[in-house]
């Protein structure tokens, strides 16, 4: 019994143990499998991770390359910009700049980046720091400020925009500057303004000139009347009589008056031009000697270039101008002083830094320098203005230099002045050099009174001229037929054509102009002898009529002597 029981119990125990073993084995095998698969999973994940890292690295490298490329592109763009670009932080440390910016500093890029802007550009820092502050505080751009900046090429003007640099949170952490160098533009603007001023001045002069011309014409007619009457009276007055003196004075005064009008007309550039090629040096010498005699206390120094080219000028006008300039200098000098006159031949290239641009060619430069009181800037600007004088109303007419200006301009020359208060004044006159030969200096003509015989048809719309003219002509011995206008004149001429020896024709008349009358007269008698008279100078219009066959021209007011000469020459 026991043995069987034991056997059974052992059998049971064994089977139990067998079960345990089976269970353990199964569990272990399973756990082993699970671990292995877990490890395999991890390896897979790991290699997956490795792969992913490699991919990421490739991506990162690719992005890095792209970034580098973009950075280069940005750099190219910045450098290609015509503007000056820089970028600084809130402490003025320069973080970046384009090529032009570095060029301004005159330093290589690596020496600029990291330095303070205020150290590199110390000038004007108070101003630009203010602008920087504004940008930083408000986070808004400050645009179009005009500033000066010292560059390696000197001080330049810039127009600068300041843009806030905002970081990713929207805080302004720096300032981006875009600046354009506007120095050249400013200079061009200045030049333009200067030229505009010049133009305005020239236009002003011209309109004054026209005004002046008109006045002169009317004036001349009046003077004609006065002179004529006084001359007539003089002819009948005994030189011993006290009236003689008074009449002579009137004559003188009228002559002065006509000088004035002539100057006005000069200024208006409507003169009786008689252009010949003259030697400027001889003209200068003549005037200098004349003047020297009158004003002995002024020492005149002449430095005249030998063999100077001639100038195509009207001799009287140039002499008049010279005289005006000498008088002006004398007034500036006062009691005693020096006058330096110099002539040289130059070309347009030598004429620099003048308010005018000379036409190309050679010129004769005449310099007149005095040791007088000089002028300040304000006076200098107005010196050529007509009726501008520093001598007081009694003494100065203000026309002297204005007429000089007009004369020189009419001769296609240039005139310039430099002066310093207390140091003296220098006038520079440029006249185009003539290529032709210099003409002889003829003797000055002294008009003499010449009497004559004949019938003269006097045509003028001015009552006073007609009256006076008739008297004068009668005194000279001529018979006068008067006509107050063109149509009447033609009538009279038709009636008396065989009797009339000469016609004295006023150019400017209402209804029918002098020119037209002349034509009509010509129609009637092609050989008609005509002298044109005018209050204006010999201008284009008159010249045209002259070219058509007028025999002579006389400018009002004329003296009896002049008139007599002219008539004699014509008949």
């Amino acid at each position, binding site marked *: 019994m026991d043995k069987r029981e034991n056997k059974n119990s052992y059998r049971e125990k064994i089977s*139990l143990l067998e*079960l345990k073993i*089976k269970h*353990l084995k*199964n*569990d272990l095998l399973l756990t082993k499998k699970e671990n292995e698969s*877990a490890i395999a*999973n991890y390896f897979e*994940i790991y290699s997956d991770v490795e792969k992913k890292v490699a991919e990421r690295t490739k991506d990162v490298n690719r992005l890095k390359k792209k970034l580098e490329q973009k950075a280069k592109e940005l750099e190219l763009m910045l450098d290609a910009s015509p503007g000056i670009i820089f970028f600084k932080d809130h402490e003025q440390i320069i973080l970046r700049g384009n090529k032009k910016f570095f060029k301004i500093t005159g330093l290589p890029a690596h020496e600029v980046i990291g330095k303070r802007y205020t150290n590199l550009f110390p000038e004007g820092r108070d101003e630009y720091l203010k602008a920087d502050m504004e940008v930083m505080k408000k986070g808004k751009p400050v645009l179009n400020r005009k500033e000066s900046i010292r560059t390696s090429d000197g001080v330049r003007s810039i127009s600068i925009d300041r843009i806030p640099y905002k970081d990713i949170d929207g805080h302004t952490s720096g300032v981006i500057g875009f600046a354009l160098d506007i120095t050249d533009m400013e200079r061009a603007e200045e030049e333009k303004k200067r030229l505009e001023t010049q133009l305005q001045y020239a236009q002003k002069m011209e309109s004054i000139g026209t005004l002046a011309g008109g006045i002169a014409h009317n004036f001349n007619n009046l003077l004609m009347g006065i002179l004529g009457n006084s001359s007539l009276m003089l002819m009948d007055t005994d030189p011993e009589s006290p009236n003689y003196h008074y009449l002579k004075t009137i004559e003188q005064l009228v002559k002065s008056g006509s000088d004035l009008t002539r100057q006005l007309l000069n200024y208006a550039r409507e003169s009786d031009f008689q252009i010949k090629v003259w030697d400027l040096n001889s003209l200068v010498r003549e005037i200098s000697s004349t003047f020297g005699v009158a004003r002995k206390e002024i020492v005149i120094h002449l430095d005249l270039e030998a063999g100077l080219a001639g100038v195509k000028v009207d001799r009287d006008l140039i002499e008049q101008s010279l005289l005006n300039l000498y008088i002006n200098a004398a007034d500036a000098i006062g009691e005693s002083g020096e006058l330096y006159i110099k002539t040289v031949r130059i070309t347009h290239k030598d004429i620099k830094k003048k308010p005018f641009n000379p036409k190309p060619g050679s010129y004769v430069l005449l310099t007149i320098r005095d040791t007088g009181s000089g002028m300040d800037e304000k006076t200098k600007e107005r010196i050529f203005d007509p009726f501008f004088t520093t001598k007081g109303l009694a003494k100065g007419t203000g026309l002297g230099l204005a007429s000089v200006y007009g004369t020189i301009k009419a001769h296609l020359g240039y005139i310039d002045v430099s002066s310093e208060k207390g140091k003296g004044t220098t006038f520079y006159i440029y006249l185009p050099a003539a290529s032709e030969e210099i003409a002889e200096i003829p003797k000055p003509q002294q008009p003499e009174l010449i009497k004559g015989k004949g019938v003269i048809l006097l045509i003028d719309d001015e009552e006073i001229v007609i009256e006076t003219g008739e008297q004068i002509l009668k005194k000279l011995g001529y018979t006068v037929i008067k006509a107050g206008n063109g149509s009447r004149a033609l009538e009279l001429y038709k009636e008396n054509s065989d009797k009339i020896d000469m016609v004295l024709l006023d150019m400017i008349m209402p209804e029918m102009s002098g020119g037209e009358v002349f034509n009509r007269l010509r129609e009637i008698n092609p050989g008609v002898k005509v002298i044109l008279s005018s209050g204006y100078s010999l201008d284009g219009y008159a010249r045209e009529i002259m070219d058509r066959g007028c025999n002579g021209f006389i400018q009002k007011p004329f003296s009896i002597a002049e008139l007599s000469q002219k008539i004699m020459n014509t008949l």
Partner: protein
Amino acid sequence: MDTEKPNKSSLDDIVELVNDSEISSIKNIVSGIIKIINDPKSTVKDLNEIIQIDPPLSSRVLRLANSAYYCPPKKISEIIRAIIWVGYDAIKELALSQKVCKLLNINESLQGCSRSSLWKHSISVAMLSKMIYRREYGERGDNMYAAGLLHDIGLIILEQFRQDEFKAILEKLNAGEKDIISIESELLGFDHAELAKAVMESWNIPKELCMAIGNHHNPLDVDKRYSRMTKTLFVADCYCQEIGRGLCDCAVIDRVSYENCLNTLKIHKNALNLIMEDAEKEILKMEQEGFFS
């Protein structure tokens, strides 16, 4: 009783009710985890996704990972790290257990069957049947574990949606007349196993589990494909009943089928004892961890 058609419709009604109720709140997680269990390509990430969206589950998982037992070098605050630290399989099980526990807890005590009884019974069946798979067949028992947890879910459903009938069923059961299946069929036209199966099917739970759950009282009726799981479940259920981890104190065990299954499965009687020893240890651990609270 002409039970086919009315059964079906009545069954469908309940299924519908279930899916409209709070019970279905565990559906996503449960079916999700079971899917992961059956997908060889699934990873920690997938499990992480399922757990993350359930705050009580998430906190439970983290608590476990940081517990003295697992003792991580640094405090774990991410689910995915917890999964890796504790173990992919362990967390799968934990999540399933958590969720089903919650379900089995929302009901008032079943007359004659306390809450913990049902919960304890389910977990015991789950643990035992899983270990049978591992130690007897040498296979993983994750699906078995899930089936074990869910097999008696039908009772909860009946208690909630067919209260009156359920009361009647319990009374009759206590009276000791017949087994529960017969009583249910009489009174309802279907039993709690069929009900559970129907609900599981509506949750897209894999066929094998559904069949096992549906036939856990009549294991001999299943197709060969599903017989092993079903029979194992049946065996575990009966054994637990025997050792006092049963559902109700006076349940009737079908001895004949029991012996039959043991033979078919080639399980020695003592084997179950051995396995249950270790299973108990595991269950004790869970108790200590506060799983049943």
